[in-house]
Each structure stands twice: as structure tokens, then as C-alpha cells.
């Protein structure tokens, strides 16, 4: 939606004499943004298996990507992905009220359930050597990407989550805060604290 259209829509909803805030167009933009999953969600709410499958296929890899990065074991990650998808697309779908995008809603459920799962595990230790994934074990020379991947695994859960949502997935800080369910300032400090820690870890790694 172009800014011109947005300004027009905004004007129609504004009472006379109402001053336009500089960021008002963003609110309007938010309200006219159409959720691409709207029809699929409607179908899923009615118990249509095809719609649920379409949503499942669309979001499976993304959710699994998040859980794989967050969980120490791949098997746990897959089980968690399954739990999240069943919970969101089958059990709780009728509670989705369309106040946010479906993807944001699904993400916040995924984040919530992942953090619940991780809270039962100890925080990763910064000093401990990184746990190598299977691929890492096979290739002895760790390339830079692998290094970064491992360093990421050594961040505390909350910081890692914020870094993944903001820097890897490209959500804005506001969206990240919304998904995690914390104030913007907290999301900022979590993601930036994480990145600074990553920078130090990577620096140590290149030195060694």
C-alpha cells in the first residue's frame, strides 16, 4: 500500500481538526495490512485438514529452524516443533483473533513454548567448549559459519532468541519485542547484549 493511499485512508478515519502524528501512517499501514494467511486460518478454524496442511507446510521449516537453533538436541527440536504446530494449528487456532498477523501469533506461541522447554534445562556455559552438531564432527576444519553457529549456541537462552528473531530472521526490534512479549527496551538490550557477546566470542576464536 503506497503512502498516498495510506494518508487517504488515514484522513477518512480522522475527526476534523485532528493533528496527524508523524508516525500515524504506520498505525494505518498496520491496520490495512492484509494477513496473507487469512483464508487458510479461516479454513483451519473450521477444521479443514487441507488448510491446516497448507499452513503446516508453510511454517514447518521456519518453526523447526527456530527450535533447532534453540534446543541442544535435534530430536528435542523436532518433537518441540510438532508440539508447537499441534498446539497452534489445532488446539488454539480458534483463539486467534486476527489482531496481529498469523505468523507473528504463531511465532509468539513457538517462542513461549520453546522458552518453557528451555527453562527446564541449564543455561549454556560460556566457558564450555561448544557442542558440535553432527556435521561439525564430520568436517574437522570448522569454517566461519560453523564457528558462528557454535558461538550462537553458547549465548544464554533469552539473548540467543532475540538475536535469532532480530538479526537472523530480520524482524524489526518492535516485532521482536511483540513476539517475545517484552517491552521494546528489553528486546533491545537482549538482542544487542547477545550480539556484543557473540562479537567477543568470535574475536577470541579468531585469536586462538
Amino acid at each position, binding site marked *: 500500500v503506497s503512502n498516498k493511499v495510506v494518508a487517504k485512508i488515514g484522513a477518512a478515519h480522522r475527526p476534523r481538526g485532528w493533528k496527524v502524528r508523524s508516525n500515524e501512517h504506520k498505525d494505518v499501514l498496520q491496520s490495512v495490512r492484509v494477513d496473507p494467511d487469512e483464508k487458510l486460518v479461516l479454513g483451519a*478454524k*473450521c*477444521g479443514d*485438514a487441507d488448510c*491446516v*496442511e497448507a499452513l*503446516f507446510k508453510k511454517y*514447518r*521449516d*521456519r518453526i*523447526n*529452524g*527456530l527450535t*533447532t537453533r534453540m534446543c541442544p538436541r*535435534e530430536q528435542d*527440536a*523436532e518433537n518441540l*516443533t*510438532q508440539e508447537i*504446530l*499441534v*498446539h497452534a*494449528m*489445532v*488446539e*488454539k*487456532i*480458534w*483463539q486467534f*483473533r486476527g*489482531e496481529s498477523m498469523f505468523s507473528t501469533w504463531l511465532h509468539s*506461541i513457538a517462542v*513461549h*513454548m520453546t522458552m*518453557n522447554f528451555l527453562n527446564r534445562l541449564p543455561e549454556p556455559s560460556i566457558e564450555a567448549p561448544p557442542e558440535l552438531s553432527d556435521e561439525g564432527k564430520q568436517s574437522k576444519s570448522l569454517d*566461519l*559459519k560453523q564457528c*558462528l*553457529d557454535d558461538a*550462537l549456541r553458547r549465548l544464554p537462552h533469552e539473548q540467543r532468541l532475540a*538475536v*535469532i528473531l532480530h*538479526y*537472523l*530472521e*530480520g524482524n524489526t*526490534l518492535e516485532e521482536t519485542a511483540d513476539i517475545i*512479549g517484552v517491552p521494546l527496551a528489553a528486546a*533491545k538490550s537482549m538482542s*544487542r547484549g547477545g*550480539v*556484543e557477546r*557473540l*562479537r567477543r566470542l*568470535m*574475536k577470541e576464536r579468531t585469536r586462538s
Partner: protein
Amino acid sequence: MSCSEIAAEQLHDYLDGRLSDEEAREIRDHLLDCCICREHESELRCLLARLAELPTTAEPKRDLWPAIAAQVKTPDPFLADLSEAIAQRRVRDAANLVHGEMNRIVALNPLKENAAALLSYFTQWMEMGAAHCPIMPYVSYLKLARECLQRFPRSPRPRLSQIDSAHLRTVEGILAMHDEEYAEAINHFDHVLRLGDEINDPDLVAFAEGAIARAHTKNGAYVKAENFIDRAIGTALRSRRKEMVAVLSVRKAWILFQRNRPKEAAETYARAETVLRETDDHLTLGNVDAARGRLTRRDGEYYAALKAYGHALRHYKRCGSAQHPNLARALTNIALLRRLIALRLSTAPDQELADIDEETSRSIQRQRKKAFTHLRHATAIFERERDYRGRGSVLLISAELHTDSGDLDTAASELARAYELGEEKNDRILMARSRLQQCILQNTKARISQEPIRSYFYAEQARSFAEGANELAAKYTQNMRLTAHTFIWHGITLMNPHLLDPDQASKCYQAAYDLLKPPDANIYFVKPTGRDYVWDDLQMLGVKLKAAGCDLSPHDSGAFDLTDLNERARL
């Protein structure tokens, strides 16, 4: 700009593109000059670029679909609509939905899917004002809910899923609240909160937190209640349920009022009311008006309070039931107001009726008669609902009215019954209130008694009742006004000529004064919490102490100005 002025935060804002042109230019200029910051920036830039390249998706190694497909089921649109209507406080819509599916609720089968959720939403709907409405003669919705709950197997219920277990615990909690078993209710709702993280249902969690706050309020544990109500409001705010926030705020305002913060309470009520006016939630709107009546009563504005209670009654009647306990509570409060008005009309609290002119005397009688009518109506509702706390309040006010009109024996037996009721349910507030009234009654007896020995005996009894009331209120409740009132009457009792102990009495006076003082008031304030009967009693004690030569400064509450009181009553 120097390095120290560039916080790491600003560098991140710069990289995220969150700075204004001017600020970004300043950072760029600094980076040209400073090699440390330049290195920091280039490291971060490189790191962010690499992070963005990392894959964000990962295909699961096994096929997850079959497990999910097996669980796809046709959802229940009725439950979705009902839960939504409840969260948005659309009372009429929710009632229409429930009535449309009444057969399903009556024939509830616990083995069927969503049975626990159905019963839970039904009871939550009931809590919006319909609980006491009769479906047919002698069967209310409350009775139906109890009957439906019994169809589920007794706890422990191993076969239930977590969400079903949370729903059933919610039902059990609500029913325990109706039975006035608050400790049991807290236990049930606490279980729901423990499951909170697993069930991921913020509406249910907010409901449970709000209910725990309500149970603590009923027990007089206002500090705990405030903690829980703040948690509940936070949960409702996070899930953007403004109507729910408003309903919970009404509960919070009541707690603030009880904690002697009337100004904050009035503001909270006003904020909640603006949201609730958009809904048809007459029960909560009635509660707001009733609370307003209570606030104005505390300021001594008895006629304004009567008007507010009138509004509350109108709202309660629109709930669809003339049997709601809140309606009976409002009637009890109106009776108390009429008694207080009659008391003010009779100039001094204990003056003989013969000294008053005929017109005033008739008006006093009229107020007392109306008060008794309200109490009879309230008693009928409380008896029917087996509400012991309500019956206790009615007995206390009735005893006060009997004391005022000189029927001291009836008053004594009513107070003894009220104390028994409190003891039966271990309700310390009711017990303390009964003891306080008994102390006041014995004081009256001591004053009017002609024989010195009898008078001494009554005064001794009054002292023991005052000590009992004070212990109950101060030790077991957090009700500051009640505690203050017990201190005041302990002091008044000690000023009885037979017991005369001005030192101890002035200590009581100061303790009461400190309790009634609003937390933000300085020492020179004139009107601590308004001029209601507690304030009048404090002044009476003050006058007695001054007459005995005690120096009350800096706690002097001002002169006991009866002419002023009389004028206000007439207005």
C-alpha cells in the same frame, strides 16, 4: 563527539538505521577520527552480515504431518464465540449463546470432547451476573453447574489433558467461592496458574489471578490481593483485553479503598467505568456505583451515597435477577445509610428522642422504618443464597438500629448470633465487627444504667469486648479502618468513669488517628478520611480526652461540631 559520548547503544542504533540524519552524521564523523570505534563498528557490521546469512529454516528429518493430521478435529464454534463474548464482557450476546445451547449443557457428557471447557465457560458466563437466576423453580444456573461438575470423576483425574484439568479446576474454584470456602478456591485457582505456562491461555490465567485476588480480599488479606490483581491486570493488558482490564481494575479499586487509598480508588473506578459503559455488564457497573456510594459515605455525604446506591440497584436489577447477593449487599448498605442519617437527625448520637421536635422525630422514625424494610428484603436474599457474611452484616446493622431505638436486648441477641456466624466460618472481620458492636452496646448500657454496680459490670464487659475486637481486627485482618474503629471504642470505654484511664485511652486515640491518616497526608491535615461515623467517633473520644485534660496535639482532630453535622444532614 568523543568515544565516551558514543555509547555502544548508539553504535547499534546507527547500524540498525534508527538514528536521525543529524545523529548519524555525528557518528560517521567520529568514526573517521577514532580507530577504536571504527574497529568496533566494522566488527559489528561484519558480524551482522554473517548472522543474516545463516539459514533460518531447517526441514525436519522425519515427517511430522501424520501426527498432526491425526489431531485435526472440527473445532467448537460455540465455545470460541462464548469465550470471546465473556472476555469482551458482552453479557447479552453470551446469554443468547448459552440459551441457544442449553440442551448441550444440561445433557453434558464428561466423556465427550471439550466437556470441561464447555462447563468452564458456562460457569464463567454465570459469574457475569446470571448465577442466581432461576432456570426453572428451585433450579438456578449455579445448581446446574454444581450438578454438571459432579458428573466428572473425582480428583485425581489422570486421564484429563492439562487444559481440561485447568478448566475443571476453574469450575471448582468458582463454586468454592460461591460456598465462601476461600482457602479451597485459592488452592484450585493456584493449580490453574501452575498449569499456566503449559496451557498458554492468557484469558484463563487472568481469570484465575483475578479470582485469587478476590478470595484474598474476602479474607481481608489486602496486600496479597493487590499483588494478584496487579498480575491479573498485567496478563489482561498483554492480551489486549481492555474490558477484562476494566473489570479487574474495579476489583483493584476496591482493594485500594480498603487499604485507605480512596483517592486512587476513585480514579481507578472512573477509568474502568469509561470502558464498561460501552458494554452491557450491569453487574460490574452496579459494583462501580455501589463502591461510589461507599466512597461518598466515607466522606460523610450520606444523601449522595444513597443516590449512588440507587444507581447500583438499578444496574443489579438489569442483570436479570432480583436475587443477586450484590443487590442484597446494596440494600444492606442503604439500610446502614438510613440509620446514619437518622442518627445525625437526632443531633447527638445518644440523645433521648423526647428532646427532638416532632417533625424531626417523625423523619427519624421514617428512616429507621425504611432501613428495616431494606434489611428484611436483603435477609430474604441472603437466606436463600445461604450467604453467611451477608446475614452477619444484616444482623449487625439491625442490632445498631435496635440499639438506637432503645431495644437493647434484641440488639444483644442479634450481635451474639452475628459473632456465632463469624465463628462458624472463621470470618475474623465479621467476628471483630460483632465484638465492636457488642462493646458499643455495653457502653450504652453502662451509661444509662441507674445502679452503679450494674454500670461497672457493663463497663467491664465493654472493655473485654473492645480488647477482643481489637485483637481480632489488628492481628488477623488488614482492615485499617476496622482496626482504627476498635481502637477508638477501646479508648471511649476506658474513659468510662468506672474505668477511667486517660493515658491508655489517649494511646488508643493516637493509634486510631495514625491508622485513619491517608499515607500521603502531612501532620497538619484536618480531615483524614472524610467525616463519616468513624471520624465522628474519633472526635467524640477526642472531646472526652480533652475534658479529662489530655493534650492531643499534634493529633488533634478538631472540635466536635454538632451544629455543622446537623446542617449537613438536613441538606
